[in-house]
C-alpha cells in the first residue's frame, strides 16, 4: 500500500510541477509574447471582447497590478475548470475542443504502435539473447542502426517508397476525407480507412522504436542467462523452453518495463515530428500548427496535454511494474 501512496504522491507533485512550468514558461521568455499574441489576433480580424481579454490575461498574466501569485492562482482555477483559453488559429474555438478532437488520433496511433513495438522488441530481444553466441548476434548492428534513424526521415523514406513510387498507401491524413466528408463516423468502412491511413505512421514508430527495446532486452537476457539460478535450472534438466521463459525472460524483462518511461519519451518526441510528415491530425500536428502561427494558448494547452498523457502512461506502467515485481511493493 505504501508503494502506491508514494507513487501517487510523486505523480501528483510532478503534475503540479508540469502545470507550473507551463505557467512560468511564457513569463520567463524574452520579448513580449502577450503583445505578439494580441497583434496577431487583431490582424486576423478578431475583436478584443472582454471574454477574449480575459483569456489572454489568463495565459500571459493580466495587467501589472495583479501579482504573479494571483495570476498563478487564477491559472490553476481555470485549468481545474477545464478552460485552456481560446485558439486564435481556429478562432473562436476553445483550445479544449481542438485538443479533444486531436487526442484520440494520437492516443490510438502512438499508443498502439508503442505497444506493438514494445512487445516485438521484448520477444525479439529475449530470443536474440537466448541465442547468444550464434549467428543471431549479428542482429545487434542492425538494431543499433534502427535506433539511430530519425523518425521523420524514416517517415519520408516510407512515404517516398510506398506512397509515391508504389502507390500502395495514402500520403497524408488519418482517413479518407473525401469519402467521409462529415468527419469520423462508426462504420466498418471508416475503420478500414483509418487502418489503411495509419499503417505507414504506425510502421514508422514500430521500426524506429523496436531497436532500442530489442537491444536492451537482449543485453539483459544475456546477463540473466549467466546467473547461477539459470545454470542450476539447466543442471536440473528442465526443458530449455521453460528455462528461457520462466527463469530468464521473466527476470530480464523487468528493467525494460521499468525503463519504459525513458523510452516512451523518445517515442513521443519522434511521433510529434512524424505526425507532421503524414499530416496526421493528432496532438503533434496541433502543437506544430500552433507554434507556426504563434497561437500560444493552443500551444501551451497541447503541451500540457502531451505531458499529462506521458505522465499517465508512466504511472500506468509503474502500477503494472509494482504488480508483477512484488519487491518494489514490499521494500516500501
Amino acid at each position, binding site marked *: 500500500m*505504501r*508503494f502506491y501512496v*508514494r*507513487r501517487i504522491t*510523486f505523480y501528483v*507533485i*510532478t503534475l503540479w510541477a*508540469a502545470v507550473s512550468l507551463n505557467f512560468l*514558461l511564457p513569463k520567463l*521568455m*524574452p520579448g513580449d509574447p502577450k503583445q505578439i499574441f494580441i497583434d496577431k489576433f487583431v490582424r486576423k480580424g478578431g475583436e478584443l471582447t472582454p471574454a477574449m481579454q480575459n483569456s489572454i490575461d489568463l495565459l500571459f498574466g493580466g495587467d501589472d497590478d495583479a501579482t504573479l501569485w494571483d495570476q498563478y492562482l487564477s491559472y490553476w482555477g481555470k485549468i481545474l475548470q477545464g478552460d485552456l483559453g481560446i485558439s486564435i488559429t481556429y478562432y473562436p474555438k476553445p483550445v479544449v475542443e481542438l485538443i479533444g478532437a486531436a487526442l484520440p488520433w494520437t492516443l490510438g496511433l502512438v499508443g498502439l504502435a508503442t505497444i506493438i513495438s514494445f512487445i516485438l522488441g521484448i520477444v525479439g530481444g529475449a530470443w536474440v539473447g*537466448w541465442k*547468444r*553466441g*550464434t549467428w543471431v*548476434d549479428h542482429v545487434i*548492428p542492425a538494431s*543499433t542502426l534502427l*535506433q*539511430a534513424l*530519425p*523518425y*521523420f*526521415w524514416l517517415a*519520408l523514406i516510407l*512515404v*517516398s517508397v510506398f506512397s*509515391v513510387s508504389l502507390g500502395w498507401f495514402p500520403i497524408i491524413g488519418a482517413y479518407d476525407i473525401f469519402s467521409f466528408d462529415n468527419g469520423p463516423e462508426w462504420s466498418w468502412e471508416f475503420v478500414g480507412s483509418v487502418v489503411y491511413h495509419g499503417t505507414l505512421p504506425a510502421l514508422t514508430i514500430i521500426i524506429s522504436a523496436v531497436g532500442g527495446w530489442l537491444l536492451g532486452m537482449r*543485453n*539483459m537476457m*544475456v*546477463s540473466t*542467462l*549467466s546467473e547461477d539460478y539459470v545454470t542450476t535450472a*539447466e*543442471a536440473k534438466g528442465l526443458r*530449455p523452453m521453460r528455462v*528461457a521463459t520462466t527463469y530468464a525472460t521473466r527476470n530480464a524483462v523487468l*528493467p525494460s518495463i*521499468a*525503463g519504459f*518511461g*525513458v523510452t516512451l*519519451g*523518445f517515442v513521443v*518526441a519522434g511521433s*510529434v*515530428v512524424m505526425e*507532421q510528415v503524414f499530416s496526421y491530425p493528432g496532438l503533434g500536428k496541433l502543437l506544430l500548427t500552433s*507554434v507556426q502561427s504563434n497561437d*500560444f494558448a493552443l*500551444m501551451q494547452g497541447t*503541451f500540457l496535454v502531451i*505531458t499529462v498523457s*506521458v505522465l499517465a502512461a*508512466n504511472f500506468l506502467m509503474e502500477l503494472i*511494474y509494482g504488480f508483477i515485481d512484488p*519487491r518494489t511493493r514490499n*521494500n*516500501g
Partner: protein
Amino acid sequence: MADDIREAQAVTPAADAAPAASVVVDGLPPENHTPGIEPDVPITSPDAFAVASTDGPAPKRGLRAMLPRRSGKLIVGLALVIAIIVFSIIGPFFTQSPTSTENQQYLPPSSEHWLGTNHLGVDIFAQLANGGAGSLMVGLVAGTLALVLSLCFGIIAGYVGGWTDEILKFITNVMLVIPGLPLVIVISAYLSTRSLWIVALILGFTAWAGAAIVLRLQAKSLRSRDYVYAAKVAGEKTHRIILVEILPNLLPLLAANFLGAVLLAILGEAGLSYLGLGPSGSITWGTILNQASANGALAQQMWWWFVPPGLMIALFGCGLALINFSIDEIINPKLRQAPAAVKSVRKARKSRATQRPSGPSAVASAPVAPRDDEKVKA
C-alpha cells in the same frame, strides 16, 4: 529508498550491472580473472574450459584494459564516426559555397553536382558537407551539457545522500517524465531568433535525466566501497573524493552516456530543423530535409535531396550506438563472456567430434556431453 521503482531497476542494462561493473571498478579487468574461478561463465565441462582458456586473449594491463576491446563492432562504429567527422571538417574546403545560388535549379546528380541542386540552385553536396559541422556542433555542445548536468545531479545525489539526494532525485525524476522534445518545441517557439548555441543548450538541458539516474545508482554503490571509506578516513575532502576516487571509475559509463546524449541531441536538432524550429540562418542536415520536403522533393522522387542528410544522421548515430555497445560490453563483462562461452562450448563439441575417430585425444568427457548438446541447441 528502494521503494522507488527506478532505483531497483536499470534504465539501461549497465545500471543493473553493479556487481559486474565492480570488476572493472576495482582495477581488475575481467581479463585478469582466471577463467576457472569466474562463476558467471557457464562453462562446466573441462574440455570446454580448456578451449576457452587457450582461445582467450592475453591479459591487458593498465589503461589499455579500460579501453574498449577491439571488436568488429567497435571498429565499424569508430570508422563511421571518424569518417563523418572528417567529412564535415574537410568537406567544405572542396565544395562550392553552400549559399551560392548561381547554378541552375533542380538539377539531378551529375559529375559536376554530385547530389544535384535544390530549389534555389544551391549545390546539395555542398550543403551536406557544410551542414555536418552544425549538426555535430549541436550534438557536441548538448552532449557535454547533458553530461555535466547528469554528473551534478547523479553523482552528487548518489554520493552525498540524505535530503540532498531526495531533492536531486526528485528533480531528476520529474525531468525524466516530462517529454523533452515537445518542451524544446515550446521553448523554441517563444524565441524568435535561435542561434546554434541556444538550440544546443536547450537540447542538452532536456536530455540529462536518464543518465543521471544511472550515475546516481553507481555512485551510491561506490560510496560504500572500502577504498572510499579509506579516503574519507585519510581526511580527503568530499569534492576530492568525488573527482579523484569515484569519477575515474565511472569513466566507461560516462562515455556511454555522453555518446547517447550526443546522438539524442543530433536527432533532436534534426527534428527541430525539419519543423523549421532549428537554429535560424544555419545549415544543418535537418534544414536540408526541411527544404527538401517543403519543395516537393518527395513528390518529384528527388531521392538525392532527402536521402543523404538522413543517411548521414543515421550512420553517425549508428556509429555512436555501436561504440556504446562496445562500452556496454566492458561495463558488463557478462555480455561478452556469455556468448563467447556458448561459442567455445560449441567449438569444443565440434573439435571433439572430429578428433574422436582418429584415436584417443587429450580431452575426454563423455558423461557431460548430453548437457552440452542441450545447451547449444537451446
